[in-house]
């Protein structure tokens, strides 16, 4: 970064954008984090699960008699009892017969589906007892391939639904046919994004205690989920205030997957039934097969229409997503990409056929990016293919099609305005930092050494500030347009500031975020500000940290509440100084008369007035100092149009990845030599936190690109259900990552911030895949599916060589 750029990016802020040690680090580094598994309740009992070994079967009988004889076993519960006592979890789309319960009843629909649960005095006893439960099954036909599942003759995962397609809608935004007709070329391709996920170190954990005197269910869970307390109360047939979720537990990683609603319903029911605390912690096997945490699993069929000069005019995309056996919010993961369906490019019209299909696999849940990373990979692969087809450089093609910085706000065909951006500059900064020409020289050197080597490039969007727009878009019966977040700020008698938020945190450093923002507005040292996680009965409504929204939404809410505090202090100052509010300024917690700085009331005195001296308060003002602010997502609150156009997310971060990779032609092993990520998420409130997210995101995308896949056998058995087979990147695979910042402030947010929780992940898989295909192109080979494992690469090289050879023979 040049000096000028540094200076132009220098924030006009006191605390925002400054280096600051994250508040949370202290407890994590000193081993004082407090997770759901750390909750110790008197008389706590423990749960073990009996799961289906079949992908599809009828349950003929369940014999728990031996288990119940084991000393220490408190109860064995099956779906027959549980499901009659609760309401089902419903899918996010209009498919009321696709109901889901924590325990299967009569049929099982995937390997790993919960069939029975044992509660015992200890986990060990519960597990021993689980091994004594015999379930008799009769297998029924299953379907595992999403495309086969769409066929009318396929076995039905939910016969009552009448089809395995749970959602399908073809959107046409703009004159797609005309643009295809007018374009000089079209190019069709298919890419596949494998079922992978985030797989946090902490599996899902939940502890519940039923307080019979208060008639309230207390819940401690490693949760990251909007509307969790409401849904839990509804399914358990309790009043909304009959459930109290304690958000003050640390969550050991999530990025979307900590959606343990079914776990909590089961444990909550058991706690109430037994009238004693119950805890369930997934072990890794449980987590991976039945934890409902596997991510998007997609086949994209794309056709691009473009001109000889490289201008991409229109796109047709069919995305088939295999959501597994049940539906939560998974079909909606095809909905978020509607808001960035053209990526950062000026593609004028789009046809998008979104198909969500059920198969006999573990259900899919939200994973970082909510479907955007696969879509970005599909678009970027196409852009590279167009460049190769036209014999142009991938840099040229991108620069030709990137939305220009003077075109914002930019309306894309699907109805979303991109708020701001300077894509070409960020792209250039990434190329400069990588020293692109040098990278090409290194690539060619590696090629001379006998390696296959390639450079990968991606330019991708991160829509941020998550809201609910995909809900009404994908479900006509859903009119949710409110997607607020909130914060309460309080100043006590001693003048200390405390802020309260109503959600859990899974590593996003919300305490750092809120204290920095409140400190900025009130001009108080952020480290003196305490940030608390309320429980769900004390909290203001939050829609939880999803969709890269907390810097925008929680940050905005905290700023709003702090501004109300500041306004109140100014009013108190005006009343006591005998001047109008307009004559005052607020500086470092003091109220000062603008024209006579000697006339001022310091912080301590202002606080004393509002807490103790009612006689000095302006008439009618509430005593004390506590304000809340609830903020609706900016640009939110609108229903989609009839033809399916909608403002999806408000803010759009941008990232550009440049990577140099080599492939060992003998083994297919990939090495990444240089990695640069240019990143623009507007004003960074906590740069260290943003950089941490981005770095981890790059590693996450590396896993999706090269290693991670939940693989199933033809029988529907999960074959990669341990870390021996589900491979994740470690320090051995992740290269040093150079992050280059750029700042294009968002006009929609308090400080110009955008989201960054999905940073790195949204563009790294596309770039790494591009680098490998650049390397394989030397041999005329190409891979269009992830993960590009050494074996997949090796096999592609072999088959290409064989094809070439047989082609030669024919000549």
């Amino acid at each position, binding site marked *: 970064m040049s000096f000028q750029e540094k200076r132009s990016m220098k924030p006009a802020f006191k605390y925002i954008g400054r280096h600051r040690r994250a508040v949370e680090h202290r407890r994590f580094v000193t081993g004082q984090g407090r997770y759901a598994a750390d909750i110790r309740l008197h008389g706590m009992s423990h749960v073990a699960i009996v799961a*289906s*070994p079949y992908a599809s079967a009828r349950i003929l009988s369940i014999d728990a008699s031996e288990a119940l004889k084991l000393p220490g076993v408190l109860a064995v519960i099956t779906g027959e009892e549980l499901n009659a006592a609760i309401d089902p979890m419903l899918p996010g789309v209009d498919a009321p017969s696709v109901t889901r319960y924590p325990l299967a009843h009569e049929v099982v629909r995937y*390997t790993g589906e919960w069939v029975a649960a044992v509660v015992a005095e200890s986990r060990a006893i519960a597990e021993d007892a*689980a*091994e004594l439960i015999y379930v008799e099954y009769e297998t029924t036909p299953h379907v595992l391939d999403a495309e086969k599942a769409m066929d009318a003759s396929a076995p039905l995962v939910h016969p009552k639904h009448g089809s395995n397609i749970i959602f399908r809608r073809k959107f046409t935004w703009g004159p797609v046919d005309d643009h295809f007709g007018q374009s000089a070329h079209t190019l069709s391709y298919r890419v596949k994004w494998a079922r992978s996920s985030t797989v946090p170190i902490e599996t899902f954990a939940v502890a519940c205690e039923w307080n019979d005197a208060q008639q309230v269910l207390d819940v401690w869970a490693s949760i990251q989920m909007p509307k969790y307390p409401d849904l839990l109360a509804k399914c358990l047939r309790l009043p909304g205030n009959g459930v109290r979720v304690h958000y003050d537990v640390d969550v050991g990683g999530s990025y979307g997957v900590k959606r343990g609603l079914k776990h909590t319903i089961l444990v909550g029911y058991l706690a109430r039934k037994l009238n004693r605390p119950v805890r369930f912690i997934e072990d890794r096997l449980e987590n991976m097969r039945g934890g409902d945490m596997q991510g998007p699993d997609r086949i994209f069929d794309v056709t691009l229409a473009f001109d000889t000069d490289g201008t991409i005019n229109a796109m047709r995309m069919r995305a088939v997503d295999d959501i597994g056996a049940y539906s939560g919010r998974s079909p909606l993961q095809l909905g978020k990409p509607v808001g960035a369906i053209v990526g950062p490019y000026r593609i004028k019209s789009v046809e998008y056929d979104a198909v969500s299909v059920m198969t006999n696999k573990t259900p899919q849940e939200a994973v970082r990016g909510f479907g955007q990373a696969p879509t970005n990979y599909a678009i970027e692969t196409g852009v590279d293919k167009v460049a190769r087809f036209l014999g142009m450089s991938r840099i040229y093609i991108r620069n030709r099609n990137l939305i220009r910085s003077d075109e914002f706000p930019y309306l894309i065909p699907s109805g979303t305005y991109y708020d701001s951006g300077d894509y070409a500059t960020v792209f250039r900064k990434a190329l400069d930092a990588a020293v692109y020409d040098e990278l090409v020289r290194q690539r060619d050197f590696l090629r001379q050494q006998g390696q296959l080597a390639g450079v990968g490039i991606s330019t991708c969007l991160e829509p941020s500030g998550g809201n609910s727009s995909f809900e009404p878009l994908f479900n006509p019966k859903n009119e949710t347009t409110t997607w607020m977040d909130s914060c309460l700020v309080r100043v006590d008698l001693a003048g200390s500031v405390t802020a309260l938020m109503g959600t859990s945190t899974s590593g996003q450093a919300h305490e750092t975020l809120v204290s920095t923002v409140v400190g900025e507005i009130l001009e108080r040292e952020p480290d003196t500000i305490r940030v608390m996680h309320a429980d769900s009965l004390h909290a203001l409504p939050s829609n939880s940290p999803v969709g890269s929204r907390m810097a925008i939404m929680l940050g905005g809410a905290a700023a709003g509440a702090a501004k109300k505090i500041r306004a109140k202090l100014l009013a108190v100052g005006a009343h006591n100084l005998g001047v109008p509010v307009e004559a005052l300024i607020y500086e470092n917690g003091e109220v000062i008369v603008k024209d006579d700085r000697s006339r001022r009331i310091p912080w301590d005195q202002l606080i004393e007035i509002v807490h103790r001296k009612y006689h000095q308060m302006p008439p009618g003002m509430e005593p004390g100092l506590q304000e809340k602010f609830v903020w609706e997502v900016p640009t939110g609150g609108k229903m989609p149009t009839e033809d399916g156009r909608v403002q999806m997310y408000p803010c759009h971060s941008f990232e550009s990845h440049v990577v140099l990779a080599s492939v060992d032609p003998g083994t297919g092993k990939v090495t990444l030599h240089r990695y640069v990520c240019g990143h623009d998420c507007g004003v960074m409130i906590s740069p260290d936190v943003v950089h941490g997210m981005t770095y981890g995101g790059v590693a996450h995308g590396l896993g999706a690109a090269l290693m991670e896949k939940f693989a199933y*056998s033809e029988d529907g*058995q999960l*074959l990669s259900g341990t870390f021996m087979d589900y491979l994740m990147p470690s320090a051995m695979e992740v290269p040093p990552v150079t992050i280059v910042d750029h700042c294009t402030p968002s006009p929609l947010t308090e400080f110009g911030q955008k989201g960054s929780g999905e940073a790195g992940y949204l563009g790294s898989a596309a770039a790494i895949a591009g680098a490998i295909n650049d390397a394989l192109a030397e041999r005329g080979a190409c891979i269009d599916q992830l993960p590009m*494992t050494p074996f997949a690469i090796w096999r592609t090289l072999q088959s290409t060589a064989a094809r070439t050879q047989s082609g030669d023979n024919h000549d």
Partner: protein
Amino acid sequence: MELTGSQIIAAPRQSVWEALNNPDILQRCLPGCEKVERLSPEEFQVLLVAAIGPLRARFKGLLKLSEARAPESCVMLFEGQGGPVGFGKGSSEVVLNETDDGTELNYKAKAQVGGKLAQVGSRLIDNVAKKMSDDFFEAFRNQLSAGRATEAFAVPAVSMREEPRAATTEIPESRTAEPVEARGAQPRPSKENVRRPDERVAGLPGFVPVPTWSFAALLVTFGIVTGVAGTLLLR
């Protein structure tokens, strides 16, 4: 998946066939087998304990015979429930050929496992299957070879409370492909085996159509997942 193998047993084909038809002999040869119970001439219930890495379970299995052509060949169908660790099921086609050295036994098994066995066991099961096969054939040979056909050697069952290796590590390693001449006409001394000379099988019964149930059980419960590794490679 498919698992194939071939064994040379220094005994006449008829003896091998009959031994394979003898639940008592097979129960003794098969590590971990606790019980074999005939439900009908073609159906047997099998109870055996298997340990694969961290998984240990008692399998309850049903064995069915089909296409039996004594003493040459048959097909066995097996389905075993291991409770929470999953299931194994499959079929095994067995052919016995007479050779100069005795009998050549060829088997071709197809099978699948499910549940935790598939999730966890895919990395371990190859070796477990190999080991169990070796143990089985070693014991089986000892039963059949050179006039010892009626002398029973037992491989102790894998107890639920006992490390399985304790029962099996002492059995000498035998390569299935090893030519039978290497063993000579005399059986290898079976000092490492737990010998119970006083325990005799009470006369070989007449034709009982259960040849190779042990193979099916063996393969299905332990070995059959070798193909899982192949499937994994297809990822």
